[in-house]
C-alpha cells in the first residue's frame, strides 16, 4: 500500500461506517467533556467528598502540621488554619464509612504527593470498625472460602475449586449480591480515591482481582460520573450553574434545627456549597447538619431504640478486635517520621461501659505502651443522647461541644506529644 492510501485508510473506514462513527464521536466528546470539567460536582455527596479529598491530596501543595483520619464521626472535628496566635494547621481528611484497612494506604498516598510531612496523624477511631467481621476480605465477606485478606490467588482457587464446603446440601450460595454487601458499603472510598495501579499494590490474590474488576470500569469517566450525566440530562436547569446561596443565619444551630438551611436539591448546588464549607472549616463536615428536616426527625424518633438495641451486641460480641490496621499505619508513619495520636470521638453515655468499648480502650492503651510514637488522648467523657441525631452522629449542638472539647482537652496533648518542628516554643495556651 502507498503512504497516501494508508493515510486515507482511517477516513475511509469512518466514511463506510457513518452511524458507528457518529456514535463513537458522541461518546468520545462526552468523555472529553467529563475530563475537562469537574464532573464530581454532579455526583452524590459521598462521591464528591472522596474526589475532593483525592484532588486536594494529589494537586495541592499545602503542608499541614496535622491531618485527621477517621470516619463520619471524626468528620465533625473542625480543621484549623494557622493564625498568629495558633500557628499550626490541621486538616480533616476523614471520610464517612472508611474501613480501618484504608488508613495506611491513605497516608501513603498523602506522603507520596507531598515534600512535607505532618507532625502527626490524628486517628479518630470507632471501636466497631475494628471488629474482625468489619475487616473480612471483600471478595468473600462471609469467609466461605477465604480466611484472610492477603490470601494468594492459588490458595483461594484451591479452596474454591477443590477443597470446598458441601455446596450441594447447603444454602450458602455464591450469590454476587451477598459477596458485594460489605464492598458496596466501603467501595466508593477505595474506587474514587485510588487509581487501579495504586489499588493493585494495596490488595493481593483473589481480593486484588475482585477490586480491580470494579476499579477498571471507573477509568472510563463517563461511567465513573454517570450520576452527573443523569442529573444534567434529566433535570438540568440554570439553577445548576447559579452561585449557591446559604443564608448567613445558617451558621447557628437554631436555624439548622429549624429546617431553614438544608442543602439545595441538585447535587451541583449542594456540592458547591460543600466545597465552600470545606475550605472554611479545613475539611470538617457535620453530616447531620445536612440532613433534611423530616429525616432528622425520623432519626431522632428512633434514637432511643437504636441506642438500647446496640448495647447487647456490644456486650456480647464474640468477635475479636483486630488492631492490625493501626499497626500498619503506625509502621508507615514511623518510617516517614510521623507520630500517631488516637482519639475516640465520644459515644453516648450508655455505650461507654460496654465490653466492646472497654476492650478497645484496653487494647489501644496496650499498643501505645509498646510504641513511643503512638499516644492515646481521650475526650473528657461520653455525651448525653440529646447531643446525637441518632445513635452515633452528632447533631449541631453535639458537634459544637465535640470541637470545644477537642480544642481544650485533646489538642494541647497533641501539641505536646507531636509539636511541629517549626512551631515557636512559646504559644498562647488554647482558650
Amino acid at each position, binding site marked *: 500500500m502507498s503512504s497516501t492510501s494508508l493515510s486515507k485508510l482511517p477516513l475511509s473506514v469512518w466514511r463506510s461506517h*457513518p*452511524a458507528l462513527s457518529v*456514535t463513537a464521536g458522541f461518546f468520545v466528546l462526552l468523555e472529553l467533556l467529563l475530563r475537562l470539567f469537574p464532573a464530581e460536582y454532579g455526583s452524590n455527596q459521598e462521591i464528591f467528598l472522596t474526589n475532593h479529598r483525592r484532588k486536594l491530596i494529589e494537586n495541592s501543595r499545602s503542608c499541614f502540621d496535622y491531618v485527621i483520619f477517621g470516619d463520619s464521626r471524626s468528620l465533625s472535628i473542625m480543621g484549623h488554619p494557622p493564625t498568629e496566635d495558633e500557628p499550626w494547621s490541621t486538616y480533616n481528611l476523614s471520610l464517612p464509612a472508611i474501613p480501618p484497612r484504608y488508613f495506611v494506604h491513605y497516608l501513603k498516598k498523602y506522603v507520596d504527593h507531598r515534600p512535607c510531612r505532618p507532625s502527626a496523624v490524628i486517628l479518630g477511631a470507632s471501636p466497631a470498625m475494628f471488629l474482625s467481621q468489619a475487616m473480612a476480605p471483600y471478595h468473600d465477606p462471609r469467609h466461605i472460602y477465604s480466611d484472610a485478606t492477603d490470601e494468594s490467588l492459588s490458595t483461594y482457587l484451591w479452596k474454591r475449586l477443590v477443597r470446598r464446603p458441601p455446596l450441594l*446440601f*447447603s*444454602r450458602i450460595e455464591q450469590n454476587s449480591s451477598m459477596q458485594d454487601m460489605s464492598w458496596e458499603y466501603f467501595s466508593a472510598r477505595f474506587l474514587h480515591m485510588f487509581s487501579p495501579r495504586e489499588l493493585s499494590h494495596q490488595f493481593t490474590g483473589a481480593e486484588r482481582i475482585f477490586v480491580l474488576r470494579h476499579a477498571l470500569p471507573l477509568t472510563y469517566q463517563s461511567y465513573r460520573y454517570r450520576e452527573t450525566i443523569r442529573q444534567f*440530562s434529566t433535570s438540568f436547569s440554570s439553577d445548576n450553574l447559579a452561585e449557591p446561596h446559604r443564608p448567613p443565619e445558617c451558621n447557628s444551630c437554631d436555624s439548622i434545627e429549624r429546617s431553614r438551611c438544608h442543602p439545595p436539591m441538585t447535587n451541583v448546588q449542594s456540592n458547591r456549597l460543600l466545597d465552600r464549607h470545606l475550605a472554611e472549616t479545613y475539611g470538617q463536615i457535620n453530616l447531620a447538619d445536612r440532613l433534611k428536616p423530616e429525616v432528622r426527625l425520623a432519626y431522632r424518633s428512633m434514637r432511643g431504640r437504636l441506642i438500647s438495641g446496640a448495647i447487647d451486641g456490644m456486650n456480647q460480641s464474640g468477635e475479636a478486635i483486630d488492631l492490625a490496621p493501626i499497626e500498619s499505619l503506625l509502621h508507615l508513619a514511623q518510617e516517614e517520621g510521623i507520630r500517631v495520636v488516637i482519639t475516640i470521638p465520644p459515644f453516648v453515655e450508655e455505650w461507654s461501659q460496654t465490653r466492646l468499648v472497654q476492650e478497645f480502650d484496653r487494647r489501644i492503651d496496650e499498643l501505645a505502651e509498646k510504641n513511643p510514637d503512638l499516644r492515646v488522648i481521650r475526650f473528657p467523657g461520653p455525651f448525653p443522647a440529646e447531643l446525637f441525631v441518632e445513635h452515633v452522629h452528632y447533631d449541631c449542638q453535639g458537634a459544637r461541644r465535640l470541637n470545644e472539647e477537642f480544642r481544650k482537652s485533646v489538642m494541647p496533648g497533641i501539641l505536646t506529644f507531636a509539636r511541629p518542628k517549626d512551631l515557636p516554643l512559646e504559644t498562647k495556651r488554647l482558650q
Partner: protein
Amino acid sequence: MIFNSAVFLFFFALVYSVYWLLSLTSRPVRLQNTFLLAASWFFYGYWDWLFLSLLIFTSTMDYAIAIALERYDDRPNIRRVLITTSISVNLALLGTFKYYNFFASSFAVAMQTLLPGSFDPQQHSILLNLVLPVGISFYTFQEMAYTIDVFRRSIRAQRNFLDFALFVGFFPQLVAGPIVRAVDMLPQITKPRIFRKEDLRQGLWFILIGFFMKVCIADNLSPQVDKVFLPGRAIYEANPGLAGGFDGFQVLWASIAFMFQIYCDFAGYSNIAIGVARLMGFHIRMNFNMPEFAQNPSDLWRRWHISLSGWIRDYVYIPLGGSRAGRFYTYRNLLLAFALSGLWHGATWTFVLWGTMHGIWIVGHAIVQPYLKGEPRSPFARNSLSIARMVLTTVAMSLIFIPFRAFDAHHVWLLVRSLLSFPWEIAGEPLGYAQSVAVRILPIVVLDAIAYRSGTQTWVLERHPAIRATVYIVLLFSILVFGEFGKDVIYFAF
C-alpha cells in the same frame, strides 16, 4: 458469570478473539468446537465445578443413548428402554434438584393437615435443601428433545462427542436458554462458520438491545414492582397487612410493571445470548417476539418464551393427542400442557396456578373464538380493534402474572382482593405510581412497535445512517446513565 458483568466482558473478548483466529488454521471446525466447548465448560464451572460434572454426566449419557438408539434401530423394545432411561434420568435429576423440596414439603403439609401431630418435617429431616444447579431446567429439556428426536428418527445421532457436548453446553444459551433444537444447532456446529459482516452487525444489535432491555428497563422496573409486591418473603411475612394495603389501581400497574420486567429481563438475556452466538456465526431462533402486541392468548404463546412453548407443544401436547382427539381432549391437553409449563418455572403451587390460569385462558379463548369471527371494514375500526385486543391481552397476561410473583396463595388472595375493591383511587399516589411505571415501559413499547410495523427485529440495520446513529446513541447513553449492573436474571432461578 452473568452477561451484564465485567468478568463476562473480559471472558467473551478473549473467547471471540481466539475463536476467529482458530478459523485461520487448517482444521477450523474441530479446533473451534473444542475451544468453544472448553470455554463453555469454564463458563459453567465458574459458578460451580461440581455441577459442571452433572452437565458432563448427562451429556455423556444422552450421547451414548442416541447412538444406541440408532444401533438398535430394528429392536423397538430396546429402543423404548433406552428412551425411557434418557427421559427418566433427566427428569429424575431435574425432579430431585428442583422439585424434591416442593413435593416433600407439600407431603408434610398434607400429613399435618390430615393427621395433626403425626408428622414433623423438622424431626424427620425430610427436606434436603438442595441447591438448584443453574440452567438445569434448560439443558435437561434440550437433551430430552434430542434423544426423543433421534427416537422418532427425525434426526441422526451425533457421533462426535465433543460436538454433541457443545450443543448441550454452548455457553450463550446454557444457563437461561433459549432451548435450542438439535435439528437447528447441530448442523451449524458441524459445518464451518464464516465470518460475515451481517452476522457481526446483527449480533451487535441483539447484544445492544438485549442490554438495554435488561439493565435499563427490567432492572429499573424491579424497585417499582417491589413497592407493591414487596421485595422479599421476609418483609411479606413480617408485614402481612402491608401486602394487602395497596389500591387496586396500583396492583394493576404493579402487575403490568412485573410483566414488562420479566419480559425485558428474560428477552433481554435471550437477545444477548442470540447476539453473542451470532457473533460467532451461530443462528439461534428468537425466543420472544413482541408479546405486548399479541391479539389473544394463542398469539401470545407464539410470541412469549417461544422455545419453551414449542418444546411443550412438540413433546407434551402433541404426544397427548394435541387437537386431534376431539374438543374435550384438546382442552384437557391444553390444561395439562400449561400446568406443566407452570411447574417448569418453579417448584411452588403458585407457579402451577399461574400455568393453569394460562391454560384456562387459552381454553376459554378456544371456546369463544368461533363466535368472534368477522373484522370491521374500515381500517380505522380494524386498527382500533387490534389495539384494543393487544391492550386487553397484555392486561390479562399481567394479572395472571400475580401468582408468578406472589410469595404464596395468601399473598395472591390479598392482591386480588385489592384489585376487586372498588372504586379504585385513580389520583394521588396510585396515579403517580402508574406514571412512574408507564415512563419506564414506554421505551420498550416504542422500540417494539417500530419492530412490529417493520416486520423484523433488526429493523434498525435497514435504516438511514442518521437514524441508526440516533438509535445507537440513545440506547448506549441510556445503558450508561440509567443501567443497573450486576443484577441476576430472574430466569436463573428456574
